[in-house]
C-alpha cells in the first residue's frame, strides 16, 4: 500500500494544526457556523441529526491492519465503539464530539490517514475496483493512479471551491466494479495500439436527483497528460457550472446543458491551451507510487479443493464469500458486514481489531473496503480458508450472503442523516427477517438491493437491480421501488415500478417481485437478466397484486 513520504506527512500534520485552530476559533465564537461550515466539511465533519458525523477517508478502500486497529481505538475512545463503512469506501463515525475532532484527526495523521475532502464542494475520495490487482485480465492496477490523483486533488489551489462535490473513479478491469459510469469522472485504464498506458475518459455521470450515465469524451488519454486533462475538465466546470441552484450544480447538468459534443470541444480546447502550465506526473513519480502497490510476497502454492469434505456451512461460505485469485493457491475473502439483524456496513471496534489481526496472519496485513459496504481480505492462502471461516463466524462476519439479496447497500438513513426521509435501517431489518432462509436466498441467486433514504442517492438506489428510495408523504415514510438498475457490466438506471408503498409493505413487495422472477425465469437466468428480457411490466403487475394502494 502507499506509504507517506515526508511531504505527505508534513501536509497532513499542518492540516491538523490548521483545523485545530479553526475549531478553537469556532468554539470561542470567533467563527460563525456559516463561516465554519465549509472548513469543517472539507475536513469530513458534518453536523447531523444527533451529533457531528465524521467521514474518514479510506483512499480507494485500502487499509493496513495498523490503520484498522487505530480506527477501532478511535471509535471506542471518541465514539460508541463502532463505525459505518460507506458506498464510497470510507468510514463514518456517528457520535464524535466536535471538540474532540482535531484530536481524532491528529490520531489519524499518526497512522497516515485523514478526513480531508470527504465532504464539501471539492474533489472527493477517489474510488477503485475492490478486486484491483488480484483479478485476471486487468489492464493495470488502478490504485497507483488513484493515489496520484488523490495527491493532485488534495488542497488543489484552483479546485477546492467547486460548484458542487466532485467524484472520480478509476477502473483497470473490463468488469467495472467501481460504478465508474455514475461518477463525475470515470477513468478506464487502457492501452493504445503501441501498448502505451492511458485512459478512456467518461464525464458527467452521477446519481442524486437526476441520475445520468457518463459520456465518453476521450477514447484515449496518454498517462502523461492525466493532470492536464483533469485540470481542463475541472476548469471548464469551475468557471461554467451553475452556482445559483444546488440541485443543478453537478457537472452532469453542465454537460447536459452544453451538450456532450460542445462540452468535449471546450475541454479539448482548454487542455491544449493550458497543458504547458498544468501539473505533470513524471515517470519516476509513477514508478515510485506503483512500487508501493507491487504484489506481496506470494508463496508458490497450488490450487487445492479447500471446500471438499467440509461441512455444508463452510461450503456455502466458500461459494458465496470467496472469489478466485490470479495467483494459484490463493483466494479473496469477503468479510460480510451484512449479518441478518445488523445494520449494513456497521462494524464494531472488536470486529475491526479481530479482522486486523486476521489480516496480519493470513493476508499480508492489508484490508480493503468495498463500495458494497463489506470488507475484503484480498490475498488469503486457500489452505487457511477453513480457519479464517472459523474465526469470522463467531464474530458475526461470515454471513454467507455476498452477492445475494441480503447483501444490500443502505445509506445511514433517518437514524443518523439530517437529509433522510426514511429509516433505511428498519427496512433493511425487515428484509433480513423476511429473507432469512439461506436456501431460498441461494435459489434467488445474484440480486442487488440498493436503498437510499432520500433523493441524494447515497445508497445508489438508481443502479440497484431492485432500488428502494425513501420518500416523505405528508410526514410519513413511504418507499418508491425501481427495477432493472445496474452498475456492474452494463450500467443502467432502474425504472420505478409504480406508486410508492408504506414502510411495512417494502419487504412483502420485494418478495412478490422475486416470486415473479421465480415464475418468469428461464433455466439459470439471473434476476437482472429476466428483468431485461421481459421488462418491468410483468413485475409491476404482480408487485401490487395484494396491495390496497393498487386499486
Amino acid at each position, binding site marked *: 500500500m502507499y506509504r507517506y513520504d515526508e511531504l505527505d506527512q*508534513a501536509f497532513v500534520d499542518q492540516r491538523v494544526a490548521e483545523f485545530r485552530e479553526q475549531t478553537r476559533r469556532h468554539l470561542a465564537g470567533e467563527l460563525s457556523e456559516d463561516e465554519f461550515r465549509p472548513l469543517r466539511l472539507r475536513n469530513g465533519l458534518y453536523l447531523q441529526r444527533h451529533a457531528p458525523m465524521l467521514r474518514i477517508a479510506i483512499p480507494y478502500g485500502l487499509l493496513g491492519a495498523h490503520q484498522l486497529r487505530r480506527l477501532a481505538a478511535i471509535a471506542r475512545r471518541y465514539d460508541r465503539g463502532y463505525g459505518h463503512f460507506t458506498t464510497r469506501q470510507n468510514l463514518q463515525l456517528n457520535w464524535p464530539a466536535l471538540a474532540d475532532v482535531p484530536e481524532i484527526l491528529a490520531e489519524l495523521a499518526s497512522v497516515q490517514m485523514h478526513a480531508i475532502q470527504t465532504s464539501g464542494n471539492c474533489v472527493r475520495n477517489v474510488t477503485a475496483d475492490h478486486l484491483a490487482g488480484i483479478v485476471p485480465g486487468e489492464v493495470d492496477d488502478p490504485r497507483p493512479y488513484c493515489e496520484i490523483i488523490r495527491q493532485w486533488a488534495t*488542497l488543489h489551489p484552483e479546485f477546492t471551491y467547486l460548484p458542487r462535490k466532485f467524484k472520480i473513479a478509476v477502473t483497470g478491469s473490463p468488469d467495472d466494479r467501481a460504478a465508474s459510469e455514475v461518477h463525475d469522472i470515470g477513468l478506464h485504464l487502457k492501452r493504445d495500439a503501441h501498448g502505451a498506458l492511458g485512459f478512456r475518459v467518461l464525464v458527467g455521470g452521477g446519481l442524486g436527483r437526476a441520475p445520468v450515465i457518463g459520456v465518453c469524451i476521450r477514447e484515449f488519454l496518454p498517462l502523461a497528460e492525466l493532470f492536464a486533462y483533469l485540470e481542463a475538465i475541472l476548469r471548464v466546470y469551475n468557471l461554467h457550472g451553475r452556482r445559483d441552484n444546488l440541485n443543478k450544480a453537478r457537472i452532469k447538468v453542465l454537460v447536459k446543458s452544453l451538450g456532450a459534443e460542445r462540452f468535449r470541444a471546450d475541454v479539448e480546447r482548454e487542455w491544449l491551451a493550458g497543458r*504547458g502550465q498544468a501539473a505533470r506526473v513524471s515517470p519516476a513519480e509513477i514508478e515510485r507510487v506503483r512500487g508501493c502497490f507491487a504484489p506481496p510476497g506470494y508463496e508458490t502454492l497450488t490450487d487445492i479443493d479447500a471446500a471438499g469434505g467440509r461441512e455444508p456451512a463452510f461450503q456455502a461460505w466458500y461459494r458465496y464469500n470467496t472469489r478466485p485469485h490470479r495467483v494459484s493457491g490463493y483466494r479473496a475473502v469477503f468479510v460480510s458486514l451484512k449479518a441478518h439483524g445488523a445494520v449494513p456496513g456497521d462494524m464494531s471496534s472488536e470486529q475491526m481489531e479481530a479482522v486486523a489481526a486476521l489480516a496480519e496472519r493470513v493476508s499480508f496485513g492489508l484490508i480493503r473496503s468495498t463500495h458494497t459496504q463489506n470488507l475484503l481480505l484480498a490475498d488469503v492462502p486457500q489452505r487457511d480458508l477453513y480457519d479464517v471461516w472459523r474465526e469470522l463466524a463467531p464474530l458475526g462476519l461470515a454471513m454467507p450472503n455476498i452477492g445475494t439479496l441480503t447483501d444490500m447497500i443502505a445509506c445511514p438513513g433517518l437514524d443518523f442523516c439530517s437529509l433522510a426521509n426514511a429509516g433505511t435501517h428498519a427496512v433493511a431489518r425487515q428484509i433480513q427477517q423476511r429473507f432469512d432462509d439461506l436456501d431460498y436466498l441461494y435459489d434467488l441467486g445474484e440480486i442487488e438491493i440498493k436503498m437510499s433514504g432520500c433523493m441524494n442517492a447515497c445508497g445508489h438506489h438508481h443502479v440497484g437491480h431492485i432500488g428502494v428510495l425513501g420518500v416523505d408523504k405528508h410526514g410519513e415514510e413511504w418507499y418508491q421501488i425501481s427495477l432493472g438498475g445496474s452498475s456492474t457490466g452494463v450500467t443502467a438506471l432502474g425504472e420505478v415500478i409504480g406508486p410508492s408503498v408504506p414502510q411495512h409493505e417494502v419487504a412483502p413487495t420485494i418478495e412478490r417481485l422475486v416470486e415473479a422472477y421465480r415464475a418468469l425465469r428461464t433455466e439459470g437466468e439471473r434476476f437482472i437478466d429476466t428483468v431485461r428480457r421481459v421488462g418491468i411490466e410483468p413485475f409491476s403487475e404482480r408487485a401490487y397484486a395484494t396491495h390496497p394502494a393498487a386499486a
Partner: protein
Amino acid sequence: MRRILRRHELVADEWRHLGEDPAADSRPERALIVPLAQLRAEPARWLERSGPLGVCLGPSDAVADIAELLPRLSLVAVEFPTAGDGRGYSQARLLRERLAFHGELRAVGAGVRREQLFLMARCGFDALELASGEDPQAARSALQRYDVAYQPGSAEVALRRQRFERLGGD
C-alpha cells in the same frame, strides 16, 4: 479602512475603487479600479486618464474579454463575493499563466478570508484585500500555514517541498 496584504506585507493602498471617493474619481492622475462593465461602456473615458488604471472582474466575467486591454492595465481585481465561490481561482490562473499578466492581481470581496489566502496566493494573487473584520496579522500567518504542497503554483508562497512540476514543453 481597507487592509491590503501585498506580497505578505500590510501596505497603504494607493488605489481607489470607482465610487469609493468621488473626489478621487475626478482626478485623472489618481490610481483607479473600474468595474469591467463601466470600462466597456465608456472605454475612452477611462483609458485616457493619466493615472494608473485597474479593472475589477466579477465571478462570471470572462478573462479572455480583457486580453486586449491588459497592456493598459496596472491592476486586475478579481471579486470573491463569498468564500465558497471559487471561480476567481481559475480567473487568476488564466490571467497569470495564459495571458501573462504581470501587473498587480488583487483578490477583493467578502470571500477574501484568511482560510482562502494560501490558495489565492498559489493561484497568482500578489495582493489580498482582506474582508472586513479579518485580522491582518492572522492573515499573514495563514499565508504560511503550509510549507509543502502537491501542485505547482505561483512563487508568491515559498514552499519547502512541492510534489508535481508543470508539464511544460510544447
